[in-house]
């Protein structure tokens, strides 16, 4: 075993530090350039958004296998690695595109290309840690409602941050259909809470306990918040699954 000095590269992530200002950046510029090259997108024109949320991708209806012409799965896989390491901004588009792994058509492929173009424009973006000097974890969660046009399931998302940098994120289609925005957000809270408990455990392992006894998850739906505080049953909530009362 040998010490090879300060950390610079780890699993394709480049780590930069600014000790004077207590900042740490991680980026994947090298990896991103590599995948742009692999998919022949190294000279594409940059754009500002990875995915238009108004654009609803549909299943490939006519059933023709058009995927022969383009390496859809490979591209998603490569993008997913970037997403998991340093790019929370890709979590939503990747989760949507991954739902069409089996039978993609030209429309889906255009979105993949759009993500590559977005990456081209944002190659230099890094995750920054240490900007806010507090060790308290900030947790945010949100959900849309019935965002999937085919089965009307909602999408859940959350981000947890420490020291001004995101450490954990997720964007996922919910397993069941929510009948109201409150329900969607309530399910979302459950997902976020599960993850939050795990991370709190990890922090405890590392010897960092939060001062407060409660975990704060920031959520923007009044209905869901009051249901969390007082899970009484009444006509509109009595069907909510046991699982979601976890919080």
């Amino acid at each position, binding site marked *: 075993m040998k010490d090879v000095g300060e950390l610079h590269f780890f*699993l394709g992530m480049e780590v930069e530090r600014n000790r004077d200002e207590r900042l740490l950046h*991680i980026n994947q510029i090298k990896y991103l350039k590599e995948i742009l090259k692999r998919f022949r997108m190294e000279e594409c024109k940059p754009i500002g958004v990875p995915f238009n949320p108004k654009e609803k991708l549909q299943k490939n209806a006519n059933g023709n296998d058009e995927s022969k012409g383009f390496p859809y799965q490979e591209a998603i896989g490569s993008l997913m690695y970037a997403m998991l390491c340093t790019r929370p901004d890709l979590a939503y588009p990747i989760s949507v595109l991954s739902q069409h792994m089996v039978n993609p058509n030209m429309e889906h492929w255009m979105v993949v290309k759009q993500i590559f173009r977005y990456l081209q424009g944002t190659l230099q973006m890094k995750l920054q*840690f240490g900007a806010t000097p507090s060790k308290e974890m900030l947790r945010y969660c949100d959900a849309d409602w019935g965002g999937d046009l085919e089965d009307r399931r909602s999408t859940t998302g959350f981000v947890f941050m420490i*020291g001004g*940098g*995101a450490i954990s994120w997720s964007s996922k289609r919910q397993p069941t259909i929510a009948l109201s925005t409150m329900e969607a957000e309530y399910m979302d809270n459950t997902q976020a809470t599960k993850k939050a408990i795990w991370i709190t455990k990890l*922090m*405890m*392992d*590392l010897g960092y306990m939060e001062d407060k006894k409660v975990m704060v998850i920031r959520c923007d739906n009044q209905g869901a918040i009051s249901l969390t505080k007082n899970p009484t049953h009444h006509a509109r909530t009595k069907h909510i699954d046991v699982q979601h009362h976890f919080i």
Partner: protein
Amino acid sequence: MASRLAECYQGGGSATVAFLEEPQNIEEALTCENSKEWECAMQEEYDFLMTNNTWILVPLLVSRKLVSCKWVFKIKQGANGEVERYKARLVAKGFTQTYKVDYNETFAPVAKFTSIRCILALAALEDMEIHQMDVKTAFLNGEREEEIYMEQPQGFVHQGGEHFVCKLHKSLYGLKQSLKAWNQKLDAFLKSIEFMKGEADPIVYVAQVGDVKFFIVVYVDDLILVCNDQNKLL
């Protein structure tokens, strides 16, 4: 040879690519123009395996299906595309192993990205030292639990002992349980130097001596070591 190399350095570009073809098997390696280097590399690896006590030769008494193996050749390139070294590695063909006979458990944990980022964030906030550690030939260190018999490597078949087989003592690249064996070895080592395994992520190790904290995150054979005192680094 030397002139060819020099030519390739100056020629750059396509010449380099054409020149750097890697042989796919031992026959190709021994007949291609760099056969000397490849032979050297193989000898080096073989010698290492021997000094590492990786296997002993035994006559095969029970009737067992042997695990086969092959040589893999790789040219290590430096940052500028120059040839750094020729490397040969003996790998076992894990897919020829039989469940319950040659292997049982194969699971080994790796660090989650969340844990890595979490620790990096804390290190940034507390201005801790972050160092990277590297383990040479990590997998070869693992000790095997099961009895594995492997055929003798091509090109190094013992003279007069052609019917002998290799009984493995240590792990080899390509075996199904290599990762687990390495992980156990590392786990035992870290525990012996007073590191505690994390409960949430079993591959994050923590140690505390007075005010000095150490974290270690393991990703197969890459380790990140985080410490809040520069002078106390291992």
